[in-house]
Structure formats: C-alpha cells, structure tokens
C-alpha cells in the first residue's frame, strides 16, 4: 500500500497570437515551436507509456487560447508551412555537416524529430492536436482541466462579472472542445483571491491550485500544511504547490535543466550560421531568430560550448528522474511520520518548460513515470480528483491571496512597467457589464457587435501582456495588443451605444480576433440567466 501521492500538473498555455493580416508573424512561432518541441514530444511520451501498459495519472491544464489555436485552420496551415521549412533546413544541415560527425548525427536527429512532428500533426491528428489530448483523457491517463478564458489575472480584476466571464467562457469552451466539463481549474498564474472560489463553484469546478503560501497562510491554520487540500467556504478544494519538488525542476541554479550535459538553449544555428545560407529560414526581413536547431550542450559556465551528445543527455534525464523520485519517497516517508493521513505532493510546472527550454524534459517525465510505476511502492500518481475521492473530508479554511509569480503576490502584474493598464482594463470591464445590462436581448448586428466587444475585452485581459511588459523582452508587441484590443472595444462600445455599427469593420474584427466563436455577451450581465447553458451543454454531451 502506498504511503502518499504525487500529483504532477502541467500547465500548458500560450497567449492567443494569430495575425491573418500578416503573411508571416514572428510571435506565431511561439505556438509552432511549442508544438514541435513540447506538445508533440509530450503526447508521444504519454502515448508510448500507455502502449507499454504503464498506468499513470497526470493533470494538465490546456488553456482556452491554446485549445483555440490548436483548432484554428489558419494557424494549422501555417504550422504545416513552418515544419516543412524546418525539415528542408535539417536536410541541408545533414549535407553541410558531413565532415562534422557530432553535428551530423544531430542534424539527422533533428530531421527525424521534425519529420515525426509533421507526420504526427498532419496524418495522425489530422492537424488538430486536441484530438490526441482528448484520447488520452478518455482513456483515463490525463485529467484535463481549464484555466481563465484568456489567462486573465483574476486577483487584479475589479468586477465580479469580469471574473465570472473568464471562468464561464473557459468552462464552456473546454467542455465543447474536450467533450466533458473540467473538474478543476488552473487559476491563471496561480492567482487566487478569497471569494473567487464561489464563482468556480457556480461552474461545477471542484478544485484549483495555489502556491505554497496560499495554503500555508490560510485561515484557520491548515492542519496538514500544503500536503492535503483544504475546502474553501464555498466547498471548492484548494491544493498547494510543493516548493521542494518545484525547485528541483525550476531553479536556474540548482534545477536539473541546468545540467552541463543537457542541450544549450541559446546556441541556435539561426544565430550561428552564415547569413546567406540561413536567410531563407529566419525572419523574412532578414533578422536572425531561433530555428530550433541547436548543436551544443550547456558544457559549463563558459562560452566555449561542446557538441551535444544525446546519449549522455538521456542518461542524465534518467538519473534526474531517479533523484526526483528518491526525494519524493523520502519526503512522503517523513510526512507519513507526522500526519494521520496519506499526504499529497503537488508539483506543477509550465508545460512549455519541457522540451522547449529543457529539451530533455519529456524524456525526464517518461523516466519518472516508468520508475514510479515499476521501481517503488511508496508513491502513487494521482490527480486532485482522485485524491478528493480518497479523502472527501477535508478541513474548511480560506486560502490567502497569492500567486506563483515573483514574490508570491500581485507584483509581477502590477508594478511600474504595467500598472497603467488597469485604469483602462477596469473601465472597459465596467462598460461591458453596463452594455450587457442595458441590452439584455440584443439581436442581429448589435448582438454581433456586443459579442465582439466581449472578445476584445477578454483578449486585452490576458496576463501575458502585463507579464511581457515587466520582463521587458517584446514590450512593444504587448503594449500594442493591449491598446488594440482596448481601442477596438471602445470603438465597438461607441458604435453600439450610438447605434452606428460599421458592419464591414465588425466583420474584419470577427475575422481577426476570432476566439470563442460561440461566445454570448450576456454572460457579462450582472444577473446572468445563461449560466445553465453550460450545464445543459454538459448534459447534452
């Protein structure tokens, strides 16, 4: 009999980036790179495990923007174009590196990786990766949960209606895409503020996650620390992140991904190779960008990088998986000596860490799950739902406001670089609620304009923009997205109120900002009557 449980949680999210108005748009590559390096490799690992008869349970949040992009025909076609180009480049690399055996081997490796990705995407999934996730869900390996509709940071929203809309559209879209309503939610950035759980309950969500201190600083004091969930007064369960296991994977200094045998992220042939040769594969304007082909290992704190050796890296991934498991066993044995129940350790990570940043991450997960299944009896993998079924009785306590951002509160999304956005976001949300209250049953063109206004507001609320403004990498893009969506919202508001809707322009916006095609603006009403719609939808499925 196991002594405790491990809940691995992968949070998969990318902001909604889709620019049909441009033939090529660099930021769309975020999705393409993640498909090739993270999502397909993870799916491959999950499927192989299932095929080999390894039983496992893993929780994964697929955010509505990501699900939407997976299903968007324009982006699907652009991914095809992207992967074809990469395969072409890898073929050239095989030729170019024929006198450099270490590199040549990797060139073949990449060619195979990309060719597999193309096959998986085009043939196996018929361009729609959602089908692969859904299959693993239906077979009982993955518990897929949702997130905010556009990853809006809930603790900095003023209007309750705005928080409700983020949850409503998410649950609705998730249910439609995956065939069953989500049991849990990954709150965007793990951002929780007391009271938000009541809205989660309205939508049948049974659990969410907070960072460690969200539970440790809950009141009354939680008997089991963050090694068991607590129930909010609303009855929704909150699970706390385990910092120890997070650190082993996250930490830039001590974490596994920094190992010298792992692949070096920052040496990409997009920057390293001769300009004319690489030009067809970088930005059409000739600006050098990452291609995804990287030949070196981290090597050490040196600029003199050595060639990557996939065998050494694989060996390290196995060692690190063993180390992770060993530490969890020790942790659980120690906890078992203090607690009068079997503890749960919750280890959440950004999914894109695996494969994209930490190239060997999917291998590590593969080894870890196999080892957990075959090599020990102390720990069992569970999802939060499984744990709640085992332990339906839990302490009632209110978690503390918290997030998993730097310093643990709201500062990442509220500081000198981005605090200016809230004046506009809050006002737009207030106007949206007023619109929904003023026009409870709009039809025709007005209804379309109101629905589009809701889409623009939601897109403006993505926490990604504030985050980018803070980290300072592609700030002008984040500022522009914020301004564009808010500006479009204000124009739509003006047109609706003055009954002067420009249909041509509206159609253009519907085409560009096409997230949530079935969205109903009336969710923003202060007393919405359409909440039942989600239940009905769930029943219908």
């Amino acid at each position, binding site marked *: 009999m196991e002594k405790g449980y491990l809940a691995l949680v992968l949070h998969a*999210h990318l902001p909604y980036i889709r620019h049909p*108005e441009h*033939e*090529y748009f*660099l930021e769309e*590559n*975020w999705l393409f790179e*993640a498909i090739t390096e993270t999502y397909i490799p993870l799916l491959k690992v999950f499927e192989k495990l299932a095929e080999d008869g390894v039983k496992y349970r893993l929780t994964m949040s697929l955010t509505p923007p990501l699900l939407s992009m997976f299903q968007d025909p324009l982006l699907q076609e652009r991914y095809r174009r992207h992967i074809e180009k990469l395969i072409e480049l890898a073929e050239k690399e095989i*030729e*170019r*590196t*024929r*006198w450099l055996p270490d590199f040549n081997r990797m060139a073949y490796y990449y060619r195979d990786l990309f060719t597999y990705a193309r096959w998986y995407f085009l043939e196996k999934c018929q361009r729609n990766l959602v089908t692969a996730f859904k299959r693993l869900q239906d077979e009982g390996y993955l518990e897929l949960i949702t997130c905010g509709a556009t990853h809006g940071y809930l*603790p900095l929203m003023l209007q309750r209606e705005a928080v409700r809309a983020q949850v409503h559209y998410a649950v609705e879209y998730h249910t439609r895409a995956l065939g069953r309503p989500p049991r849990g939610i990954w709150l965007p950035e793990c951002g929780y*503020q*007391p009271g938000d759980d009541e809205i989660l309950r309205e939508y049948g969500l049974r659990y969410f996650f907070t960072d460690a*201190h969200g539970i*440790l*600083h809950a009141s*009354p*004091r939680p*008997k*089991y*620390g963050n*090694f068991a969930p607590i129930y909010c007064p609303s009855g929704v369960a909150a699970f706390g992140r385990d*910092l120890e296991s997070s*650190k082993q994977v*996250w*930490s*830039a200094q001590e974490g596994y991904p920094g190992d010298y045998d792992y692949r070096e*992220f*920052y040496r990409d042939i997009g*920057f390293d190779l001769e300009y004319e040769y690489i030009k067809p594969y970088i*930005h*059409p304007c000739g*600006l050098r*960008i990452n291609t995804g082909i990287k030949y070196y290992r981290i090597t050490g704190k040196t*600029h003199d990088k050595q060639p990557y050796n996939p065998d050494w890296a694989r060996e390290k991934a196995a060692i690190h998986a063993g180390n992770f498991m060993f530490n969890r066993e020790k942790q659980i044995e120690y906890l078992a000596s*203090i607690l009068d129940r079997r503890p749960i350790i919750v280890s959440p990570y950004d*999914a*894109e860490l695996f494969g994209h940043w930490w190239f060997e991450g999917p291998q590590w997960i593969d080894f870890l799950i196999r080892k957990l299944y075959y090599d020990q009896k102390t720990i069992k993998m569970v999802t939060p739902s499984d744990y709640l079924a085992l332990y339906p009785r839990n*302490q009632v*306590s209110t978690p*503390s*406001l918290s997030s*998993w*951002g730097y*310093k*643990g509160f709201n*500062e990442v999304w*509220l*500081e*000198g670089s981005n605090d200016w956005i*809230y004046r506009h976001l809050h006002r737009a949300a207030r106007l949206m609620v007023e619109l929904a209250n003023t026009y409870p049953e709009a039809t025709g063109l007005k209804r379309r304009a109101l629905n589009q206004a809701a889409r623009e507001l939601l897109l403006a609320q993505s926490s990604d923009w504030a*985050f*980018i403004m*803070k*980290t300072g*990498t592609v700030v*002008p893009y984040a500022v522009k997205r914020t301004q564009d969506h808010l500006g479009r919202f204000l124009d739509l508001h003006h047109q609706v109120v003055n009954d002067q809707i420009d249909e041509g322009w509206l159609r253009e916006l519907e085409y560009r900002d096409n997230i949530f095609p079935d969205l109903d603006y009336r969710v923003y009403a202060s007393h919405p009557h359409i909440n039942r719609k989600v239940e009905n939808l769930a029943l219908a499925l």
Partner: protein
Amino acid sequence: MTQQDLAGKSKAELLALAKEMKIKNRSRMTKEELIESLTAITQETKTATGTQAPEQPPVRPPEPIYTTGLIQEEQYCTERIEEKVYQLPPYYNETRITLLVRDPYWLYTYWDLDAGIKAALIKDYGNWDHVPLSLRVRKEPESGGGQPEFFNIPVSPQANNWYINVQPNRKYIVDLGYYSPSGEFITLASSNAVVTPRDCMSEVIDEEWMIIEEDFLRLYRLAGGGPAAGSVELVESLLKRLEREMGSAAVSSIGISSPAGRPPQERRFWLVLNTELIVYGATEPDATLTLNGQPVALRPDGTFTVRLALPDGVMSLPVTARSADGADQITITPIVSKETR
C-alpha cells in the same frame, strides 16, 4: 510618505521600510537618520516620476544582442491592411478612485477627476498645481472594534496613481480629496475596499483540525520554510524563497521564441571564425551525380551546389556524374586541406 508619517512609526517599522527601499547601512542608523533617508528617497522618486515608487526603478534586463522583427514595427516586411493605430487616453473624464492590492505591504491606487470638479477647484485655488489634493487611507480596525484609523498622503495634482505602504491582513479604503481652507478634508471620491493578504501563518486554530505547534512548524519547514527554527524565521525564509527562486518568471513559458538570442553576458570582446566550402558545377540535366558516394540533387538546368562545413584536415571530394543511359561516367576529385593557426 511624509516626515510626520514616518515619525509616528516604531524603529522596527522604519527598519522594515528601509529594507524594502534597499537603504544601505540601515542597521547602523538611528531612528532620526532612518527617517531622514526615507524622506529623501520618497521625495526623490516623487519628483522623478510624479508618483511614489515603492522601490528602486525596475531593473531592465540587458538589451538583446540581436534584435528581432517584432520590435521594429516598420520592419514588418509584409503588406499591411490599413491599420488603425490606437492610443489610449491618459485619463478619463470621470471622478473615480480605485484601489488594488500589490502584496501584504503595498497598495496601488489610481484615479481620475472629471472636468467639472477640476474647473471648480481651479476656480478656488487659482491654479491646478496649487490644489492641496490628498489621499486619505482608511484602515478598518482589527476585529474587536475601535475607531477606524487613517493617514493622509498629500499628492501632486499632476499625479494620478500612487503606491501606498500598508500592513498585512487589514482592510483598506482610500478617499481622494483635498483640504479646505478651514482645514476640513473634502472627499471627492472613495475607492473600493480591499484586504491585504497575511504574510504569516494564521493564528486562528480550528479545534476539529488541531495539530501540535511543533508538527505544524515541521510541515511548514518541509513545505518551503527551509531550515529555520522559529515560526517568524520560517515565514521569512518561505517568502524569501518565493522571491529568489520559485517564481514562474524564472523560466517563463512565454517569450518562447526567445527574442533575446543570447543569454545576457558581460561586455567582452570576442571573435568567432568558421569556414565552409562550396562545391558547385554542372552536367547534363538528366544525369545522376554523387559526392563522396552520396547523391546530389541537380537543378532543372543541370547545375548543382553543395555546401559543406569545413573543419581542419584534408578532405577528398570525389564528384561523379553518370549519364542517364549509364554509358558515360566522369569523376573529378578535388582535395582540400584546411588548417587553423
């Protein structure tokens, strides 16, 4: 924060504040010296930005060595649909103040005043800059009653937002107003109420779910509080870790295309040198061609180009063309030697 506000604080509170402000040598300062340094800092940031920055300006990561297309708008080389450029107004013509929580110790507030109120105030004070605008921060008493406490922060009429230093686990409302000539505070707008999060474990114990203190501290230590002994140290250690290493910001999921092509590095002079070799030629378009025994694709006109990385050493490159009917075959073998000194 004014000198009076600071004078009302205990030395411990001042030290905490000085720590937040990253004032050097704070532990060696007297209370008076602390007040002086803190006043200087707050005034400095006020004049610099018009708002009160709670700490040093954000440290920006170094500029990426390589620029990327997304930064220079004009460099998008694709055709653009006629694009409306949106500019958001710097303020709205409405009277309203909003309060947000940043963390247990800081609130953020922003506000707008409508033109009517502004005009009336200008009439009374002659000049907008002379209006004695002030924020009154009201703190709800802790449970057990008592009068609500409040403190005032005079703000420049040019400012429209402010960071306010507060206490954890307390409820706050802020009023925007001004002092009438008779010294009375006139409220123009009141904010929403917010509650700051606690920065420590709760003192509230649920009898049904009791755990001995010692065991809770062990759990807390295991959960991230580190090796510290007492509960206060544990909490500090946990919060420090969140700051140092745990945030998802450490390895962000987005920025996935790595706009900075290189990790930040110190300024250092450097040179990288590589060589490649281009082998090219032409034959009959329907011929087959091999290089080192491996097939090479011909262009429709029969020309070909092979590009190879060229390491040190001697390389032999037999290029063989064979006619479509297999009757003719020609081999040419260049030998290339490269060395680096």
